């Protein structure tokens, strides 16, 4: 639940999602769910020339199971709050 809550805080921020097939997509985080499925809007593919079929895609749904990384803007992270939440979560288990 920690990462789900964490991503909910990041809704509206610009992120880059890198998939396991090496496709990287930059966009605004629209929503996230318990499976960490991601919805992005205003999307642009990094390295557009390699993925011509993605040219007109501006909104997409990304299945959580295929995400390798979610790259975040550094100022979107409050490290202390994250640490506290992680300790609380660890204690709860």
């Amino acid at each position, binding site marked *: 639940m920690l990462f789900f809550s964490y991503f909910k805080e990041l809704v509206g921020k610009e992120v880059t999602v890198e998939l396991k097939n090496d496709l990287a997509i930059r966009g605004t985080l629209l929503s996230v769910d318990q499976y960490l499925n991601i919805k992005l809007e205003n999307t642009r593919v990094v390295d557009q020339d390699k993925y011509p079929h993605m*040219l007109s895609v501006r909104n997409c749904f*990304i299945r959580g199971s295929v995400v390798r990384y979610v790259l975040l803007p550094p100022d979107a992270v409050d490290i202390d709050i994250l640490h506290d939440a992680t300790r609380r979560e660890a204690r709860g288990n």
Partner: protein
Amino acid sequence: MSWAGPDELFLSTSLASFLDKKLIVLLRDGRKLLGTLCSFDQFANVVLQNACERVIVGELYCDVPLGLYVIRGENVLLIGELDRERDELPAHMTCVSETEIRKAEKAERDLKDLKGSMRKRMEFLDFD
């Protein structure tokens, strides 16, 4: 499964906002399927109407019609909404027939196999 109200449709991560839209579905095996979303479930299983596979080889492409498709969610990488206002593909790409694209696919596969086997032979020689 409760029905999402109109406000929730845009904010939640359900695929409900994609219903009846023309979509591109990227699959784990590299295929790109286009179609209209009829139905979905919590596993991202998806039913596409008027589905076709967009086969792209270099600058050539072909849309191979498939009809009504049910896609098992575990194979889905991404579901993208195709913006009607924009070109779906760069202008320099050429649409060809299915026979042509299958020939191009085979040629690309043969080239990849050839490169693979040549690399194996070089590795065997073990240059430092």
